[in-house]
């Protein structure tokens, strides 16, 4: 395996290693964050390390269930459980975005736990309410919320963020997005040079590492691209719930699929949009128009995006994976299926981090009925 890919894989899975290193080697503060709508640029500009918080499907979410109820996306319940267990190491603050209803409820729970149960010693929490309607009124609001976040981050960091530092951070994160887009092209190429699982893990690593380190590792990986092995499988575009761990991707790819693209923000959607200028105003617009994610975008916007993205990936089939208590994907699916015109399945009410039994059957059916392409399949067909 490429050395860069090995490093990235290790940071994508052991998500707190870089934070621990950052703290001990540089005595820097680490801020946990929830959701792709958190403008991490402010954290980077203040010299803090943004660590995107993820759940763990393998551990029961007992504490999270108690505070949030069992009717909420299990990924959010797991994040809360892990926060209470100190799984992410010491954090100097938590920023939660409004990327989904579950994240918002997680924020309310954290805010209230801090108020009524100081003994839990939770770090300070801040909600950044980035909204997404395509209106000027919303832009103004998001701008105000970014200003509010900036002030909070300055307090946490004990220093002010000047416009120059912010511009640098915007440039650095856009550069990272640029590279992520190129990495994603590696698994879209025919034959693919990365699997969906590898790509997902690489993207995850970049949300745990300092931006310069992530950028350097991606650059290194790109130089090694030609030596990466080739991968085959039924090329599917994955829509539906976001995946904060690789479990479902592994299960999908173990059943003969190759995830060549997705429209959730632990994957391709994270790096889709750049910032038009190195200013706070442009940053507000970047986050407002970030997406289109399932919980926040209209059915129409989602369907149009899925059609375009699935075509660009050369996908042969569409799979919508909807986690239990993640309500948005089921509403999007009929329009997405129609828009892409691809053979498709909806896997609804899936357990966190796994495929239900019926899902496995549905996927087997999809693989059987969809004509595989690619050199090996063509060779086999010729034989």
């Amino acid at each position: 395996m490429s050395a860069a890919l090995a490093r990235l894989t290790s940071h994508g899975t052991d998500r707190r290693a870089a934070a621990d290193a950052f703290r001990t080697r540089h005595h820097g503060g680490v801020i946990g964050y929830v959701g792709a709508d958190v403008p991490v640029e402010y954290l980077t500009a203040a010299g803090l390390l943004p660590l995107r918080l993820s759940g763990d499907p393998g551990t029961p979410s007992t504490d999270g269930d108690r505070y949030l109820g069992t009717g909420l996306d299990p990924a959010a319940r797991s994040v809360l459980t892990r926060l209470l267990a100190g799984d992410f190491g010491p954090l100097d603050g938590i920023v939660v975005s409004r990327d989904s209803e579950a994240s918002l409820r997680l924020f309310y729970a954290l805010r209230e736990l801090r108020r009524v149960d100081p003994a839990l010693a939770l770090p300070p929490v801040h909600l950044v309410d980035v909204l997404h309607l395509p209106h000027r009124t919303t832009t103004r609001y998001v701008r105000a919320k970014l200003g509010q976040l900036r002030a909070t981050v300055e307090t946490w960091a004990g220093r002010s963020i000047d416009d120059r530092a912010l511009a640098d951070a915007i440039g650095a994160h856009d550069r990272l997005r640029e590279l992520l887009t190129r990495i994603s092209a590696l698994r879209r190429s025919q034959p693919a040079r990365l699997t969906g699982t590898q790509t997902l893990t690489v993207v995850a690593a970049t949300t745990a590492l300092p931006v310069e380190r992530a950028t350097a590792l991606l650059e290194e990986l790109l130089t090694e691209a030609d030596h990466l092995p080739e991968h085959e499988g039924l090329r599917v575009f994955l829509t539906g719930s976001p995946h904060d761990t690789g479990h479902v991707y592994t299960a999908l790819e173990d059943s003969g699929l190759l995830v060549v693209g997705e429209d959730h923000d632990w994957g391709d959607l994270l790096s889709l949009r750049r910032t038009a200028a190195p200013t706070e105003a442009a940053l507000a617009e970047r986050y407002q128009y970030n997406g289109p994610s399932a919980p926040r975008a209209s059915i129409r916007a989602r369907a149009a995006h899925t059609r375009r993205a699935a075509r660009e990936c050369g996908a042969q089939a569409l799979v919508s994976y909807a986690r239990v208590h993640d309500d948005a994907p089921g509403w999007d699916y009929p329009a997405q299926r129609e828009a892409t015109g691809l053979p498709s399945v909806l896997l609804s009410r899936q357990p966190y981090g796994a495929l239900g039994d019926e899902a496995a059957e549905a996927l087997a059916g999809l693989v059987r009925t969809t004509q595989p392409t690619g050199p090996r399949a063509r060779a086999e067909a010729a034989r």
Partner: protein
Amino acid sequence: MSAARLASASAATAHQRQWFADLREEAADGGPLALVNADAPQEIFRAMGIPYVVNQWWSSIVTAKRRAQDYLGLLRERGYPDDSEQYSSIPLASAFDPDPANAPWGGLPRPTIVLAETTGDASRKIFDIWDTQPGVSFYPLESAAENDVPARWWELMPRDWERAVGSDRLDLMTGELEGLIRFLEQTTGRVFSETRFAEVMALVNEQQEWNRRTRDLIARARPCPLPVNDSIPSVMIPQWHRGTPWARDAARAFHDEVAERVSTGTSVCPQERARLMWIGRGLWFDLDFYRRFEESHGAVFVWSMYLAIAADGYLRYGGDPLRALAARFAAFSDQLYTPPWSAEWYVKEARHHGVDGVVHLVSEDARGSYFTTRALEAAGIPVLELHADNVDARSADGDALTRTVGDWLDRHVLAGD
């Protein structure tokens, strides 16, 4: 003395029938019609004379007529979920009804505009589908959230709403409402008059002041003058008509009726030993449940969120009327569901009503429930949590539920008696 059905409830129900018949006629003549979510700023439609139907009200009518399953089936046929946000999605299925003539109340006329906040992850999608129906436009409003809020909102809201809600949210919603008004002016040709709007806003405040007096009467009355369910139509139907003289007068008639009962000593349960609060959605399949503990335990449910939120949740005085309207809705559901607001408010209401215990129905979708129970217990009020899966109509073993509550009353509420 046992209590008969409230005259105000019968009057409200009759009014609702007549109103809907008139509305159907108006819509048949090709006029505009809005379908709006319960927590949306209906006052603008009122002021412009655009008839509207509240989405959740229509849902309750369909459900009461036992058509909910048919309607969910219509969604399923089109590939849409039948297990998500049903209360908001059932009216959408009206648009797909192959036999609208046999729909409840003659059927929901097709709206020309639908208005909703983009709350939750799915509710806006329901309106996206409305938007694809011929002749229907969806006007979405943002649902914003604040990082830091003052806890005792009910003290601030009536006059100091700017501080309670926060200026950013108010700027946002005021801007959106200005856009809505322009949109309605252009698409309906109706006029928005500031004078008329100020009247509507004043009528709403008057109506809610009556509700507030009624709530306070019931809170102080010993014994409780009416069963908790009976107040619901008397509060809710006028709420759908708020901003009209009829609705204000209906709230006043309800108040006078309750005052009359208090002065004549009418009571639900003369041997009142325990006053109870019910938090959570109603047990619609078993409304008698609320009265089952009167004879056995002298326990009476005295509190419903419908009257209480009418009393505390709507009043907005002063400032620019459009901004005041924004302040009514920019944080409406936070008042009921988001801690610290929700938790502190339930405690305040429990104390105000002198309740001896709280039965808290915790749905699977438990918005802030843990914190509500915690706050009540911290205030020394016994709480019995019932979990929705035990209380579901299909699985509910009514006797077991009765036993659970009876037991809890014996051990935790009446033990010291």
